Every structure is written in structure tokens, then in C-alpha cells.
């Protein structure tokens, strides 16, 4: 239930922003979830529904998956991360700390571990809509 910790982070951060911006109610939060972290969306959605604070009781959480694109810094090759190609133990390590990808994944062209995660690493808040 690592997703629960991330859901707490979302609720806490949205509440802090709502407070700062003087929002009476938060209508919608758009969340992007990168495929590298392999977050279980059902668990994340359930945790968000359980953790909703007062100002977030009517909030709609829209979650969009983003594919994880990696780019080798040595040869410039770009590729898409696929969980299916990983063994379970490695996939789980990357789930907890996506940067662990550098420990187990190599550029499929030149073999370098020096690659950039162009997009799709973890969890991000894209936008928050609310009523003042």
C-alpha cells in the first residue's frame, strides 16, 4: 500500500494549496501518474476516496497515466519502459524508488545506465480547480 502514502501526499498538498489560495472547496484535481512507478490506480483512487478532507469532500480526482519514456544520455536512443519485461523483484524495487531503474535497466542500444527519464516517472498534480 505504498499508494496510500502517495495519496496522503496528494491530499495534504492539495489541502495546503487550497488554504493558501483561499479556496472554499476544491472541485477537481488532475493527477498524472507515470508508468515507471507502476502505481495501482485502483488502490490510489480508493485511498484518495478514504482520505478526503473537509474541503475535498466533493473533489473529483482525475487520474491520467503517462507512459515512461527514457532517453540514453550516451547514444541518444529513446525507448518506452515496459513492466512486462522486468522480473517481479526488480519491478517492485522500481515501484518504491523509480530511480532504482538506473540500477537494473540499461540502454537497449548501447548498454549505458546513464539515461534520462523524459516523462512518466511518478506522481504529479497537473491542476487544481476550486471555488473561492
Amino acid at each position, binding site marked *: 500500500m505504498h499508494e496510500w502514502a502517495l495519496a496522503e501526499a496528494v491530499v495534504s498538498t492539495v489541502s495546503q494549496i487550497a488554504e493558501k489560495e483561499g479556496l472554499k472547496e476544491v472541485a477537481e484535481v488532475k493527477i498524472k501518474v507515470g508508468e515507471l512507478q507502476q502505481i495501482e490506480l485502483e488502490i490510489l483512487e480508493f485511498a484518495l476516496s478514504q482520505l478526503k478532507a473537509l474541503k475535498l469532500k466533493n473533489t473529483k480526482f482525475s487520474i491520467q497515466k503517462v507512459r515512461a519514456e527514457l532517453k540514453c544520455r550516451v547514444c541518444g536512443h529513446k525507448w518506452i519502459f515496459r513492466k512486462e519485461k522486468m522480473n517481479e523483484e526488480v519491478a517492485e524495487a522500481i515501484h518504491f524508488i523509480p*530511480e532504482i531503474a538506473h540500477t537494473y535497466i540499461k540502454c537497449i542500444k548501447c548498454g549505458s545506465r546513464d539515461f534520462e527519464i523524459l516523462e512518466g*516517472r511518478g506522481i*504529479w498534480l497537473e491542476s487544481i480547480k476550486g471555488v473561492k
Partner: protein
Amino acid sequence: MVDPRIGIIEERLKGINNIIAVSSGKGGVGKSLIASTLALTLARRDYKVGLFDLDFTSPSTHVILGVKGLQPKEEKGIIPPQVHGLRYMSIVYYSGEYASPLRGADISNALIELLAITRWNNLDFLIIDMPPGISDAILDIIRLIKRIKFLIVTTPSRLAFETVRKLTDLLSELGIPVIGAVENMKMKESQFIQQQVERRGITFLGEVRFDTMLEEAIGNVNKLSATQFGKKIQEIANILEP
């Protein structure tokens, strides 16, 4: 775009009374051994203690503590396992025996992730073993942990102190509390480090003699505590106690 993880870090650390980063400008000065021995010492005095190895690319506290075959418990985040009476967290649970070549931005991201998902619960002390130098990890710790205090490690070498001087100047400029400085691996009499440290208004916590028996004690915490090094760190730990 907002990173939601930042907003939960303070909440995750709120049950910890003292957060101490064991740091130096230079590598190889004994930070990990001092951080591990301090944490063990405090745990043996019945304090609730956590040890967090933040040297993501070159972790070594697991070797010092002889940690093998353990994994954090997953429960609405991750709970570091108990090792020799302290809660112990390290990237090695996930990287195993393999190299983790990480650039600065990756180190920041991994650090934020672990701070956001690790549930330390209530601790008297969280000891953080820092990587050497003044780069991403130290800047992030200062940015993300407002209550951080530093314990500085140097050796008698002017080369080590040249980097330590810059670290302490930076911390002083930022108003970050420094508990004091330890002079490690002392081999001959000299007041140079003590004078330099005190000239900067920093408490000199003591000198630790170079201990030829220390290498043999690595991986065995009882042997480690019984070394001359271990006994000196136990003395230094007194200053951390309330």
C-alpha cells in the same frame, strides 16, 4: 505541475525529536562509521533511534551494521525494519549489491520519495549518514528538513578541513545549527583542527584516535562498540542526550 510528495514530508517527520545529519566536505573521513556507531550507542541507551543512509550511490552503513536479508514492511508507506534496536533505512533494500549510478536530479527525486513514503513514527533521534560534499543531497536536506542539525566530521588532514571549512561556512551563512565537529583518525598530536573549528564558533566534540582494530569490527556491532573508536563515540554521544 506540483510535486505532491514535498507537502507530506514535514508530516512524516513530525514524530522525531532530533534530526542530525552526519556530514563532511570530504569522503573517506569516517562519516558512516560515526553515524552508525552514534545511532547504535543512542539505541543502547534506550532512545528510539532511526538511521537513514542517504549516501545513495555509495551506501555502506549496511556493511557496518552487518545487515542482510531484511526488507522494509509495506504498510500505508514503508516502515524501516529494526536492526540492532534501531530503525534502519537504506537504498540497498532496493538496489541490492548492484551499482546505482545516479545524477543529481535522480538523487533529489529518490530522496524526496523516501522522505515522503517512509514512516519513522516516533523517534528521539534520526541520524542521517550524508554523502560527502556540498551538492544535491545536502541542499535537499536543508530545503526539506527545517529542523535539521549537523554534526561535522573531519580528519586531521588540511585537505579534509579545507572542504569542511566551506561546509561550515555555508551552514553558518544559512543559519543551520551545527552541533559540533569531530576530528577522526587522529594519529599525532596537533591542535590545528580544534583551533580552526573553535575559531569558527563551532563546538569541538573531540578527537578520535586512528584505531587499527576498527576494520575487524565492521559487520559486528558488539565488536564495534568495544573498540577504542566505539568508546570514544559513546563519549561524544553524551552531548546529544537531552
